């Protein structure tokens, strides 16, 4: 299987599998028990916190463990907004037009709670409009959430600019770094963000563990209530095996980031070169500032799901649009935001390489995809109209 969908679920690293397998065998992994097993559980938890903090240059105490990227984003946005509103005037929240559905929908829910949401447009490469941002950023803006990188089109934002401006305005800044963390250097201090969402599933961690960085001193309401876990900010039994796996994957990611991203960058270059030979293929996103190993295209006159199914028959796993939204919305709002025509946006494909991708996998796509496209276009009433 040639696996090109790390964004929706990268293979779990073998060493992470082994660690989790060992931990699932242990009894009594409750970090709040005074027993020796409890101490061990606490050690796994705190080691993971250090490893995750290490990946983004944060302190361990600034990392909150949650279950998914979506939960991290929700806790970040809702937790920060509902907390900030208690001590500051203003109820505006700024997000970009190409945020992940979890950000978009959380912002929409906050509107029902009395916040007002301003959406900053992006250009045809998916770059957030700086002028519109500066105009929107007034004293009533409590919170900004702009993603670090987009999982559908790969564009990486100039986050330092947006975060600095927010700080000069005394506004809290959250970023969804889920598609980027582990693949591009993330330093919360250099970026200047107050909160950041990341997920281990993007770099070989297991499902069931993700994280939210919240800078020391920034207050946060929880999403839900219960025991003392995560210092009341995320109550509920800790998933120690998954958290430990997340930590190990973060450590591995930090150690190998140069090598992996360089390799991924080159693989993507080669793949892009080969795909550009298919007629009427359009590359989406920013050509330069993008996630390593991320290739996103629109293939006109064919539809994405049909492409995925045919690729799957050839043992190639890719994605079309954001995997979570695929069945929700016929058209990706991200592609709409960068100005794609609706009909074209149907034919979107996203290839994201993982650490296990090799050149054979790239060749495999380069060989199969043109035939698949030809076959589907042969069937497509639009292709014929086009040729006329």
């Amino acid at each position, binding site marked *: 299987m040639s696996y090109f969908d790390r964004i929706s679920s990268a293979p779990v690293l073998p060493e992470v599998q082994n660690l989790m397998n060992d931990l699932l065998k242990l009894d009594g992994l409750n970090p709040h028990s005074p027993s020796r097993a409890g101490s061990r559980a606490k050690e796994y938890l705190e080691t993971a916190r250090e490893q995750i903090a290490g990946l983004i240059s944060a302190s361990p105490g600034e990392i909150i463990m949650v279950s998914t990227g979506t939960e991290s984003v929700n806790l970040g946005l809702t937790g920060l907004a509902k907390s900030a509103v208690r001590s500051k005037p203003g109820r505006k929240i700024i997000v970009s037009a190409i945020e992940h559905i979890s950000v978009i929908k959380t912002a929409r829910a906050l509107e029902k709670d009395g916040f007002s949401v301003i959406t900053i447009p992006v250009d045809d490469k998916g770059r957030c409009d700086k002028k519109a941002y500066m105009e929107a950023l007034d004293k009533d803006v409590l919170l900004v959430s702009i993603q670090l990188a987009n999982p559908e089109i790969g564009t990486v934002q100039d986050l330092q600019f947006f975060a600095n401006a927010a700080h000069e305005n005394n506004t809290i800044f959250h970023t969804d770094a889920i598609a980027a963390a582990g693949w591009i250097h993330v330093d919360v201090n250099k970026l200047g963000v107050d909160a950041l969402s990341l997920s281990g599933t993007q770099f070989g961690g297991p499902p069931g563990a993700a994280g939210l960085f919240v800078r020391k001193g920034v207050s946060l309401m929880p999403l839900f209530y219960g025991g003392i876990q995560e210092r009341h900010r995320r109550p509920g039994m800790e998933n120690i095996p998954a958290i430990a796996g997340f930590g190990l994957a973060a450590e591995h990611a930090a150690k190998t980031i140069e090598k992996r991203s360089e390799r991924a960058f080159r693989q993507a270059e080669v793949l892009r070169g080969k795909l550009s030979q298919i007629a009427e293929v359009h590359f989406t996103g920013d050509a330069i500032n993008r996630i390593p190993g991320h290739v996103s295209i629109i293939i006109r006159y064919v539809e994405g799901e049909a492409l995925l199914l045919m690729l799957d028959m050839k043992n190639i796993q890719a994605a079309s649009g954001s995997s979570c939204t695929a*069945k929700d919305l*016929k058209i990706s709002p991200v592609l709409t935001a960068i100005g794609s025509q609706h009909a074209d946006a149907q034919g979107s494909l996203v290839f994201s390489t993982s650490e296990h991708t090799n050149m054979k996998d790239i060749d495999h796509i380069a060989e199969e995809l043109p035939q698949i496209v030809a076959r589907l276009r042969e*069937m497509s*009433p639009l292709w014929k109209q086009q040729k006329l």
Partner: protein
Amino acid sequence: MYSEKVMEHFSNPQNVGELENPDGVGEVGNPTCGDMMVFHIRVNQDTQVIEDIRYKTFGCGAAIAVSSMVSEMAKGKTVQEALSITNEMVADHLDGLPPQKMHCSNLGADALHAAINNYLSKKNQK
């Protein structure tokens, strides 16, 4: 997510193509919605039997499988018989479709009916 029947028709769609001078043409959907089908039929003027049927489809796996299944179901039937084919029957013949595909991609019978109606209206005009 799809039944084996759907995957069979998707990977090996029957009757893809166009007819020269078709007796009826039907088009439903549009690319903006994600699915579009154009059906061509050739009808025996004496027996009113659909002797040949071809289509082109832009769309997801379900849309392609539905097109193929409808073409098979209609071929050899009279236009009156073919008019009684419903989208639900097509889905049943495919051993079901995922719920979210039932309404948006299951347009095959509509496209067939459009082609038949096109044929019938041309015939009436003569």
